[in-house]
């Protein structure tokens, strides 16, 4: 067995060494994608185009609007003078948000009454709209509490006043005190890139041998199923490990994402994750006759896995049926492990269910593909 397995491994590594295309694709695109994801994939909202219409033109209204001008969340792109101008700015996508202050704003405030502030938001991109509204609320709240404090100070100068009771939220974000989106995404990119690479490489490598005819040639030799499959998967397992190290190191050095956890726990998680991705790749290769078919199947398999993994869409917000489906997605578990080891530094006592999930998936997938592989020539 060892002689045959060693020969398989030597052969695979030689082929890989000769394959300039593969060498390039193993290193450059993952790093480029890491950069793109790191910079582009963010749900944070900055510089929301904003149009303002100030009909009050008071000290108060100007003070409030200036707070928007100074915030980097908003960028005032237009000072409108009519409602039509406001509508036009939003219709033409110049602005996603409009703030309209009606005449009498300051007067109402000075009377100590709640003053209305009209906000129009372009709901086309609901996510951006919601986040922008959130930031807007923060700014307005801050303004009103400052205003209140000011008027209290003025009133106290005149005589003792009873201070109104207020509830204040004190935010204490753990693990990512600045809510830095990259800290969330960079570890996730490591997982999803590895998934795509390992599944495609494994699937294509076997299908290519089937296409060329060398698989048939090997089938009539005394090589055993498991020897062939091991010979095919061990190199990709090693590549997968190297890929995780490369991308994780690059991502954390470039973007400064901290790694606070135990690297051995991440290693264990990565090994288990690679088992399941190799299993998926093998399974794809048993269903495909040509490389095109394998590509198509990969696409069908990988996209839902990505969507269901919790990479960007919170699993808790999915319909129940889809939430159950995520348990079949190894990336789901790996993202938990990799984010937890990078950012939280939690241990096996908390991560064991995810490790178990990947282990079980890997075992089942590998077993099924080995069994299917045997029949697949007939």
């Amino acid at each position: 067995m060892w002689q045959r397995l060693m020969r398989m491994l030597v052969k695979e590594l030689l082929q890989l060494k000769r394959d300039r295309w593969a060498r390039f694709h193993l290193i450059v695109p993952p790093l480029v994608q890491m950069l793109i994801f790191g910079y582009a994939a963010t749900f944070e909202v900055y510089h929301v185009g904003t149009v303002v219409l100030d009909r009050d033109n008071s000290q108060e209204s100007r003070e409030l609007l200036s707070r928007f001008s100074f915030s980097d969340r908003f960028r005032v792109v237009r000072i409108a003078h009519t409602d039509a101008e406001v509508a036009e700015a939003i219709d033409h996508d110049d602005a996603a948000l409009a703030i309209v202050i009606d005449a009498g704003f300051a007067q109402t405030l000075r009377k100590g009454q709640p003053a209305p502030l009209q906000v129009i938001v372009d709901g086309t991109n609901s996510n951006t709209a919601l986040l922008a509204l959130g930031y807007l609320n923060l700014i307005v709240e801050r303004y009103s509490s400052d205003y209140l404090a000011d008027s209290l100070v003025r009133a106290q100068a005149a005589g003792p006043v009873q201070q109104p009771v207020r509830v204040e939220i004190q935010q204490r974000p753990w693990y990512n005190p600045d809510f830095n989106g990259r800290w969330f995404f960079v570890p996730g990119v490591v997982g999803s890139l590895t998934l795509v690479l390992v599944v495609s490489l494994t699937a294509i490598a076997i299908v290519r041998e089937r296409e060329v005819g060398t698989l048939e040639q090997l089938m009539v030799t005394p090589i055993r199923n498991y020897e062939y499959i091991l010979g095919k998967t061990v190199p990709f397992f090693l590549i997968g490990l190297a890929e995780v190290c490369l991308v994780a190191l690059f991502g954390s050095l470039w973007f400064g994402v901290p790694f606070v956890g135990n690297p051995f726990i991440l290693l264990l998680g990565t090994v288990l994750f690679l088992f399941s991705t190799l299993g998926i790749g093998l399974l794809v290769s048993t269903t495909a006759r040509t490389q095109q078919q394998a590509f198509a199947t990969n696409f069908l398999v990988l996209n839902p896995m990505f969507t269901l993994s919790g990479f960007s869409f919170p699993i808790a917000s999915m319909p129940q049926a889809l939430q159950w489906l995520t348990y079949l997605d190894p990336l789901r578990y790996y993202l938990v492990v990799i984010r937890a080891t990078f950012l939280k530094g939690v241990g096996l006592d908390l991560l064991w269910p995810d490790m178990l999930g990947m282990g079980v998936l890997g075992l089942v997938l590998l077993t099924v593909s080995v069994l299917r592989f045997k029949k697949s020539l007939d």
Partner: protein
Amino acid sequence: MTSVAVAAEGLTKRFGDFVAVDGIDFTVAAGEIVGFLGPNGAGKSTTIRMLCGLLRPSAGRGLVAGIDVAADPEAVRQHIGYMSQKFSLYNDLTVIENLRFFGGIYQVPRASLPERLAFAISMAGLEGREERLVSTLAGGWKQRLALGCAILHRPPILFLDEPTSGVDPQSRRRFWDLIHSLAADGVAVLVSTHYMDEAEYCDRVALINRGKLIDMASPAEFKRTNLGGELFLVECRPLGAAIARLQDTPHLLDVAAFGNSLHVLVEDSAYDSESLTALLRQGGVEVSLAHTIAPSVEDVFVRMIGRTGGPH
């Protein structure tokens, strides 16, 4: 009695409703070269693939080295070499890397490996090209290297599925010399081909059509018994008028154009060259030559396929 290396007993393969191989019986003895002849889709490859254990027979069985292939395909594999028309080598590996790989897969003992590799290299005529990538080799070399890889473990039985397709005639000739030297060492060879001239190199030919074994005999016997008449070579002008004249003539079995001349098959002793010439001249055809010839396997093959129905 020579020992039987391969035996097919009622070997059948169905793909759905389609019967690719229909109850074939034959044997191949050690040291014998058996050629499979038949049109494309006749079932030659399917039969060979069943005997290699690549396909499971729907009925019947194949015995290879005395082992039932379907029952224990793994046990058979140590005894066989297989080579298909695709010359399944790794194009991105060098000559010597391919050989070492297959040597390792066949578990050739370390002590005898250098000698086997050297033999395969010299057999393929690849001395001095050991470090060449296979993708840069011409077809004939690839073919001989594939054969070299398939026999590294010295199998007593060799299955060759159209091994010479797409190779130049000189390389084909050389390849057949190799096959003959292997058979002389006692290797049983089952080879499929669609080159009729190659049939003459075989000890016995098996004609397969529509999944059925039509006949199996030595090339000489095959020609003698299956033609069913006498064959004349007729050189004449114009060919079209001659063919028209000869069609529907009593006792005349077949007319086929072969280049500038005709092959005319007549019932035994129905015509001689003079009466055939006279017949044609009556039709205004100018005859320059007419005499009997020994049929080639191709003549017989065309005739028999015509009789048993064309390809599926």
